[in-house]
């Protein structure tokens, strides 16, 4: 049974953690894609920026959170989300909007977003240095060890405080996003614009407002994901580059322009990564003695080593592009 707990810790929890992060990033990417029709490569750096704002605010007021009993970084998340949203809207106004007005091809927008990526990365590294730093300045990261009430199980299920916050916030965000898109006037207008921008404009929908709302949403979600990821591991300026591929793989798997597909895609990529790097010989160990002589188990039975984790989202990406470029759900085809 201990092996099962290993599996829960290393696959279920780890997969859900990265899945949540990818899902929140992929939703932003897919929203931007469906409204502005380009792949936004600076998304990972918007996450880093959000986390960096939390780091800054937490360093300024290290003990603010203890007053109301939450870790300070959690308390600093709403202002950081607002700042990231402002940054996103500002970047759009300064760099993307003039290009859009010129009617450039989407791929030029992609290059522009790479330019923004580099600028953001340069600025963050200039101010934060290149090393890692913990978001827990004054607080202590709680780690919960939950022993299972089963005979003979010694290994506890391990889950950390930021992971619990991550799961809770992911669920809240998904529900809130669903309500926003299906109930609110702005949300419906957003879907309308993603369906048919010309008709949306002809209906009197102010497309500039919708674009701004999209950036606010994407920026806010990016800040949440970046902060919780940095809380769970540690804040690093080059966090973003390794998130880019899984996030885009998730968005494409879910069908570009399909927010809930992106969430599903995020979890798929997250779990696939966790399953691929999991050492399966752990699970087979109890049966070791009953195996025939000629079939000795190697000690490492992982599909890929952790150092090759990036192969997993790439493989998923290529597979989906070869077999179903529109994504696994019946998404619209945005060409």
């Amino acid at each position, binding site marked *: 049974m201990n092996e099962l707990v290993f599996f829960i810790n290393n696959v279920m929890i780890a997969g859900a953690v990265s899945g949540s992060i990818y899902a929140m990033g992929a939703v932003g990417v897919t929203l931007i894609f469906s409204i502005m029709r*380009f*792949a936004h*490569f600076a998304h990972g750096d918007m996450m880093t920026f959000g986390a960096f704002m939390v780091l800054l605010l937490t360093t300024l007021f290290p003990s603010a959170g203890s007053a109301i009993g939450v870790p300070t970084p959690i308390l600093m998340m709403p202002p950081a989300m607002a700042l990231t949203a402002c940054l996103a809207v500002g970047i759009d106004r300064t*760099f993307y909007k*003039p*290009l859009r007005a010129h009617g*450039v*091809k*989407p*791929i*030029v927008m*992609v*290059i*522009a977003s*790479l*330019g*923004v*990526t*580099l*600028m*953001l*990365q*340069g*600025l963050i*590294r*200039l101010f934060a*240095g*290149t090393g890692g730093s913990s978001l827990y300045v004054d607080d202590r990261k709680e780690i919960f060890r939950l022993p299972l009430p089963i005979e003979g199980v010694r290994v506890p299920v391990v889950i950390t405080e930021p992971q619990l916050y991550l799961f809770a916030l992911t669920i809240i965000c998904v529900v809130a996003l669903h309500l926003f898109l299906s109930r609110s006037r702005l949300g419906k207008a957003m879907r309308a614009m993603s369906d048919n921008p010309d008709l949306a404009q002809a209906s009197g929908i102010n497309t500039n407002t919708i674009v701004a709302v999209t950036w606010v949403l994407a920026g806010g979600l990016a800040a949440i994901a970046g902060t919780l990821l940095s809380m769970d591991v540690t804040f690093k300026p080059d966090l973003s*580059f*390794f998130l*880019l*591929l899984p996030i*885009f793989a998730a968005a*494409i798997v879910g069908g570009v322009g399909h927010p809930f597909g992106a969430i599903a895609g995020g979890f798929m990529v997250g779990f696939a990564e966790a399953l691929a790097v999991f050492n*399966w010989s752990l699970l087979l160990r109890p049966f070791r003695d009953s195996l025939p002589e000629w079939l000795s188990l*190697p000690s*490492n*039975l992982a*599909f890929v*080593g952790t*150092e*090759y984790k*990036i*192969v997993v*989202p*790439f493989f998923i*990406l*290529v597979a989906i*592009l*070869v077999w179903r*470029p529109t994504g696994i759900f019946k998404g619209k085809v*945005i*060409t």
Partner: protein
Amino acid sequence: MTQSHPPSQQRADTVAAPRRFPLRELLLFLGLLAVVLVVYAAMGPAYGTRMLVESACYAILALGLTIQWGYAGQFNAGVMGFVALGGFCAMFFSIPVNDAFWNSELPGELGMALLYMVGAIALVIAASRLNRIGVPRTLRTAIAVILGVVLYMVVISNFREIAGQIESQAGFIGGMALPVWFGWIVGGALAGGIGYFIGHVCLGLRSDYLAIATIGIAEIIKAFLKNADWLTRGTATVSPLPWPIPGPSEVGFTLARALYLSVTAVIIAVIFFLLHRAYNAPWGRMIRAIRDNEVSAAAMGKNINKRRLEIFVLGCILMGIGGAVLASFNSIFDPQGYLPLNHTFLVLVMVILGGPGNNLGTIFGAVAVYIIWIMSGPLALSVLEWAAHFGADTFGWDVPTNLDSRALQARVFVIGLLISLVLRFAPKGMLPEKVRHHG
């Protein structure tokens, strides 16, 4: 249908414009020459020549990207991966043979492992064809997948074991001790092969997907080269790599580098000449017709995707060769030294600043941007030091200790800013490619 089309336009612009005197080109290159001379005077001939050789290597990379982006509108965001592949081939084929490896049983075992791999692939392919002998499709898929997973596990465990043995007994498998140019050619071919695979998957789809996929493949190539210690020594790096011409120890730094520069110059001249020929041949006309008007080119029955794939592969080959030449020159293979900033985005800036699709402009962009790049580090450091002193004197700041590493980060920002500014204010670059309309 009342959707009216404009009456057929005058075809005056299909006739090539009369040759004008290339004043703009001349002025830009004269300016560049002046800057190079200043660098020579300030930093000495050895430094200046090294800078020129490196910018020549970058010019090869930039020519590869300008073919893809400027000729065909394909954005390759993973130049780094192809450069690294080229570098690996330059290393693998040119360095001396490792006797500790070849004199043991390890080569045989490695060969067996590779044979197993081929066998496993053949088995899985055979399983995926089972439906031809009457096995239901779903069952066939299930068999193929399960067989694939099991065989993959067997092969990869076997491989891990042998890789571990090689590392512990012989360090790494070493080189082939073949002539340097052989590695350069294989580097180009290998990069082209990977490019074929990626292009085959992505070129029929939205242009964004190619960018995403190339970023991915670049990171994977780097991860492989970095972690496959049995093949590349990984982070331990391999050096020195031999030169195709007498090295600095024989003829001195400046002369050796000047000789290397002439080698790169010959390579560029050959590439330039061939591209020029191809560009004005029917093939090039077709490429430009596709770029300028994809729909009408398709309507004329041209096989667009095949042409695009050719372009993409050709660009990747040049990147592989450029990467190989660069690695040989630096005389070290360090997989960790391949960075998206230095080997992808820098090349991108060269191309879009110089003039996408314009070979001369691309070469100008490569040399100009490389000089800016090389000089920006010391420049940023002095600006930052000045600012820090100023701040410390006037406001009593705590000067951060790791100033030089932070100054390097300023270059990241500058490259990003440069990309944004060029796209906004000079989207066609310094030497714009003249888009003519073709019949």
